[in-house]
């Protein structure tokens, strides 16, 4: 097919584009491949784009064209003809390389695009969806519902695979204490889409202590407390440290205003720690004779006084240099205060263990084949009989003849204001008289108003003073049921019973860092430090330069002394 066309303009474009003055309808040709421009009465060609422009066998970018020139433009051959009248130039275009089988073959062999490599997004997508839905969703549900997962028990050993399946659903790090049964979901998760029942917890923690005493009526607060479920405060899967919530505001939610809401609880409002925590209240002895205690705020002026019923001076015992005249070295706290095995607190102070080694109760120095003549400690009603029995025994061994009572008691045994010893010595041969006289002589020292019992103890008299004559009047020979002479003693081992102080975790400190024992002259002075002492080291729960401390650092929620929690928590076994 041959046709001719007239084109005019400053540039005659050649190319595939239909906007070219001379369109070349072949896909192998660029959109704008070349342009003819008038030049010096003739025409020239200018290459556009990247396709090579070959004129008479040479690849050029620009060339003046003369009739007879041959241009190869892709599959086209362009021949320059002599220009007709009124035209700058004339060309003849011929498609010399028709697109043949080459392109079809090439197109068929080319695999362009990833979708032609056999990869299918759709297949991959549905495969991934199904695989994960089966492994991560269907299998665990089947294992759980089908009974493959058994609650942990001491007897049964669960197969490993169901445990592994269960672990694939594990919502977070198990607490260390629960790990040994944690792979068996059903131990705690007893029903699908159901919260953990308290019974799941109580099956192991049946004896967990209550928070309040059962008989205390707390009204709405009590109901609130009773409605709490274990998981309200304890959440598992929250880290190896454990499932105990440590945040103060869990406690403060109630304790911020308990004084008004539950006055029966007799607790003061707490705003936080260290700010907002009231001064400690110590439990002190109010009356040792009656066994009565009292709660007294520390740090008041005048300071609260304890009434343990004993005369004791920490300051006197801790005197620098000790007691060289008596051969005793300087004392240290640990000489008397012995930690219990856990190290948390100290064993009770007893005469036998702490006092006797220095404060012996011997009342005579006669060498005997039986133990020394000692007043029995802790048995004040037996003292008179013990002394009498001692001298009676001595008399039986002929002691009465060997040691007659001198006419007058030695002056150096008498202190100022002391009652005089019996004026008359019993006649020789009066053994009972001798025993009585010797006993009285010893008992006058034992019941002296400064030495003997009185050195540490109050008497049973109302004012606690020692009236030796009154005690000894008619006391000998011993009676069957003599009256008490020594007032009861009550030494507390815990002064802050609502808190838990662990001495062991403070063992790096010196006792005197907290206890002002060197200046305590009387047993009434309370050596328990106040809150101001604790806040020196213990900051709030987010403290960065102090020990982080929260309510449960010192206080325990579940108080075993209040009975079992399940009795109020609405949980039935």
């Amino acid at each position, binding site marked *: 097919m041959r046709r001719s066309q007239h084109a005019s303009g400053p540039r005659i474009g050649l190319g*595939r584009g239909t906007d070219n003055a001379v369109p070349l309808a072949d*896909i*192998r*040709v*660029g959109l704008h491949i070349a342009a003819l421009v008038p030049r010096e009465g003739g025409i020239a060609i200018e290459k556009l*784009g*990247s*396709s*090579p422009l070959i004129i008479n066998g040479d690849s050029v970018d620009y060339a003046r064209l003369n009739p007879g020139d041959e241009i190869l433009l892709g*599959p086209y051959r362009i021949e320059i003809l002599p220009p007709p009248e009124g035209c700058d130039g004339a060309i003849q275009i011929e498609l010399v*390389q028709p*697109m*043949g089988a*080459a*392109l079809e*073959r*090439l*197109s068929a*062999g*080319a*695999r*362009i*695009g*990833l979708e*032609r*490599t056999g*990869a299918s*997004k759709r297949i*991959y*997508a*549905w495969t*991934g*969806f*199904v*695989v*994960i*839905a089966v492994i*991560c*969703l269907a299998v*665990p*549900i089947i294992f*759980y519902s089908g009974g493959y997962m058994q609650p942990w028990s001491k007897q049964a050993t669960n197969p490993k695979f169901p445990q592994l399946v269960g672990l*694939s*659903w*594990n*919502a*977070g*790090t198990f607490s260390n204490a629960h790990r040994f049964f944690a792979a068996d*979901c059903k131990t705690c*998760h007893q029903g*699908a*889409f159901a919260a953990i029942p308290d019974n799941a917890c109580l099956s192991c923690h049946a004896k967990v202590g209550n928070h309040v005493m059962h008989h205390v009526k707390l009204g709405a607060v009590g109901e609130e407390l009773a409605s709490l479920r274990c998981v309200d*405060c304890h*959440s598992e*899967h*929250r*880290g190896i440290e454990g499932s105990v*919530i440590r*945040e103060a505001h*869990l406690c403060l939610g109630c304790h911020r205003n308990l004084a008004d809401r539950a006055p029966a609880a007799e607790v003061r409002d707490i705003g936080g720690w260290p700010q907002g925590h009231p001064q400690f209240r110590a439990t002190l002895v109010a009356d040792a004779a009656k066994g009565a205690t009292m709660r007294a705020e520390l740090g008041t002026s005048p300071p609260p006084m304890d009434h343990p019923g004993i005369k004791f001076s920490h300051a006197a015992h801790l005197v620098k240099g000790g007691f060289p005249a008596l051969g005793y070295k300087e004392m240290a706290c640990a000489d008397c205060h012995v930690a219990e095995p856990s190290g948390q607190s100290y064993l009770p102070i007893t005469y036998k263990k702490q006092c006797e080694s220095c404060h012996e109760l011997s009342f005579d120095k006669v060498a005997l084949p039986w133990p020394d003549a000692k007043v029995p400690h802790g048995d004040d009603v037996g003292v008179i009989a013990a002394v009498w029995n001692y001298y009676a025994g001595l008399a039986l061994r002929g002691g009465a003849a060997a040691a007659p009572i001198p006419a007058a008691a030695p002056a150096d045994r008498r202190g100022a204001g002391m009652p005089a010893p019996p004026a008359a010595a019993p006649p020789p041969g009066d053994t009972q008289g001798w025993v009585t006289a010797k006993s009285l002589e010893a008992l006058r020292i034992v019941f002296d108003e400064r030495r003997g019992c009185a050195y540490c103890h109050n008497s049973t008299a109302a004012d606690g003073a020692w009236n030796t004559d009154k005690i000894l009047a008619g006391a000998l020979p011993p009676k069957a049921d003599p009256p008490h002479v020594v007032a009861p003693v009550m030494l507390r081992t815990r002064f802050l019973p609502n808190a838990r102080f662990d001495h062991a975790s403070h063992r790096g400190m010196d006792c005197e860092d907290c206890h002002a024992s060197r200046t305590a002259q009387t047993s009434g002075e309370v050596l328990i430090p106040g809150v101001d002492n604790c806040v020196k080291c213990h900051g709030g729960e987010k403290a960065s330069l102090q020990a982080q401390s929260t309510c449960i650092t010192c206080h325990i929620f579940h108080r075993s002394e209040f009975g079992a929690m399940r009795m109020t928590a609405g949980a039935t076994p």
Partner: protein
Amino acid sequence: MSVSEPVSAPGAADLRPTRHESFLAFDRFRFLKWAVILVALAIVMYLLVRPYGRPYGGGWTGYTLGTVGALLILWLTWFGYRKRSYTENAGRLAARLSAHVYLGIALFFVATLHTGFHFGWNVHTLAYALMCIVIASGIYGVYAYVRYPRQMTENRESMTTVQMLGRIAGIDDELRGVAMPLDDATVAVVERAITDTAVGGSAWRQLSGRYPGCTTAMAIAHMEAHAREVAPANADAWRQTRLKLEEKGAVLQRIRADIRYKALMEVWLYLHVPLTFALLAALTAHIISVFFL
């Protein structure tokens, strides 16, 4: 398509992006602002509303972030479905794409806060990991969409793939002509270069643009090696053949680079789409497992 290109200011009502506006800069970065606000809110909530103990997926913050994250995943997936529909007008599409990118990135932060930074070998972390891979592949996709079209255009020089193939076919035809007088061995390699032209192929070939057994390169190497053995009468045909082969090599290089750019621009979808489906399954398992037990 680049974030560095100047952004024109379309009217609020006119959702159609201007010709040179990137989807990233759509409506003056409207969705970037949304995403930043969303992430900021999530961080504030994470810091202020703390559950008892260490932060975790539960509690007020955990459930809120989890719900937002799950809804984002569903919405973003829905977008992927709608994007394939050509009934959308271009402006709407640009808006959706812009939102998809920015909210997808925001999802990463929301979901990370939802984890409370607890990870383990379980279905929950599996869902998170799948989500991270989907987001990372999407970010690569954005990079590819920003970077490769320009390189592709520069490489193509306004030719289409079919044009390039046509050019190769033309050169093949020419080669058949010019190589005619050459010796048998050379004609054989030339003929092999003509009949056995690798364009595209395996995923690795498409992605790497490397064609180790390229017959054209082998033919050129053959002619290089035997250049001295050419009979003087054949010198011109030899030179023409050599030139045609080199021209074919250049076009092949160009079309293979073009294929490589195309592959690089779509390969991420082979992670993005299937893993989104896997993620949907894992997300379902995650949500059900949390409330089932």
